[in-house]
């Protein structure tokens, strides 16, 4: 719903438009009874009225834009939240990679392989740090 003030600006524009059209209709209906000067004067007035209508309409549109600022902000906030969720869901592959490292750690412990243990510990730590860094 438009603000009543903005609504009135558009009504004013429509009013000038209708007035311009009324003058135009008058010219067409009375063309044969009008002197050249009278006819040209009325054409000038018709064009001026239509130009007023156009300029007032432009003012109204800019007022509408001021009115929807809050809605635009709210919509942008929702969009940002959707984008955050997309990022979060994309971390699933990282979770799988962490699980891979954890299994590697288990294998290293069973087979008493310190090299493999260190390698997988390092991998798991860097993957978890990467997720934490993205969050901040």
């Amino acid at each position, binding site marked *: 719903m*438009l603000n009543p003030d903005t609504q009135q600006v*558009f009504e004013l*524009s*429509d009013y000038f*438009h209708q007035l*311009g*059209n009324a003058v*135009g209709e008058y*010219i*067409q209906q009375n063309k044969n009874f009008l002197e050249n000067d009278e*006819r*040209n004067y009325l*054409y000038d007035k*018709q*064009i001026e009225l*239509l*130009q007023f*209508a*156009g300029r007032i*309409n*432009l*003012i*109204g*549109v*800019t007022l*509408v*834009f001021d*009115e*929807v600022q809050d*809605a*635009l902000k*709210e*919509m942008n906030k*929702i*969009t940002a*939240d*959707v984008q955050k*969720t*997309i990022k*979060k*869901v*994309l*971390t*699933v*592959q*990282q*979770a*799988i*990679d*962490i*699980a*891979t*490292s954890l*299994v*590697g750690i*288990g*294998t290293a412990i*069973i*087979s008493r392989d310190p090299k493999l243990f260190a390698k997988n510990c390092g991998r798991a730590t860097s993957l978890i740090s990467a*997720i934490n860094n993205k969050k901040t």
Partner: protein
Amino acid sequence: MGERPYLYFLLQLLKVIIIFITEIISKSSIKEHMSRKNLFILIVLFPLLHGCVALNEVNQYAATSTAALSKVNDIDYTFSDYCLHDCELQQIRKGEIDTLFKCECEQQAGKADEAIQKIHFTITSYLTAIQRLSDNKGFTYDVSNLTAALQQNPLLKLTDEQIGVYNSAGNFIATASSIFYRKKKLKQYIERADPVFQSLTETFIFLINNRLREQLRIDYETRLANISQMLDNAKNDKGFKQVVVKLYLDERTYYKKHETVINSYVSLLRTVQKGHHELFLQRNNLKDTKIRGLIKRYAQDAKDILASLQK
């Protein structure tokens, strides 16, 4: 797990690992193992599949709506165009060449066009994000490294055949978990966005259908009044009259062409607006075949109008 999807997926994967280990320890044959595996997978997947939503339909709706909205440029008429035409007419009516004549269209007309662009951009960005979140292609996972790590474990002694099965099952579980989570979040976002979406699209429709159309009509009628005045003043100059009539025909073609595109674009916007509201109303029944059909129909309607615009 609400805000930490990866922990939930990790939990699901650990469940599967435990199942695999139990299977191997019980030293069952591959055949028995396969049938038990299916049972285990069903148990693990039940809570995931239970909430599965028609993501494809939401994705199709969002993709078509984004494409539909991008057709705003096809209108090829802006508030700045009006301002420039108006400025041009003022110069013509002066009847003399004035090199210092200035057209100041940046302030009012430029701001009016900015309003259209910003509302359009905001709605499109939201739909693009929804399209991405509902797109299954963007969320497939690879557990082959994980199963390879399991195979290296000396206690498990997994065969290549078993590894192949676990690979497919793992990929499937991870993807299904993501579907469940995305469906839940999409439902929340559609619920939250619908009132704002309806209000913004309504304003956008009003600006295009009512105010931009009005601006185009005023533009046309002002030029028409000028042409009529020229024609009336031409008296018996037949050659000049013909030039003026040609001017009129060109103006009429310009007006009708742009008005037709505005009509089609407004129909597209209405379809996009109704489609989102339908998604919102049916957010809890999105599995229903009838509802899926309804959402598909909105996407199809938008596609049809889009096709008519491209003709």
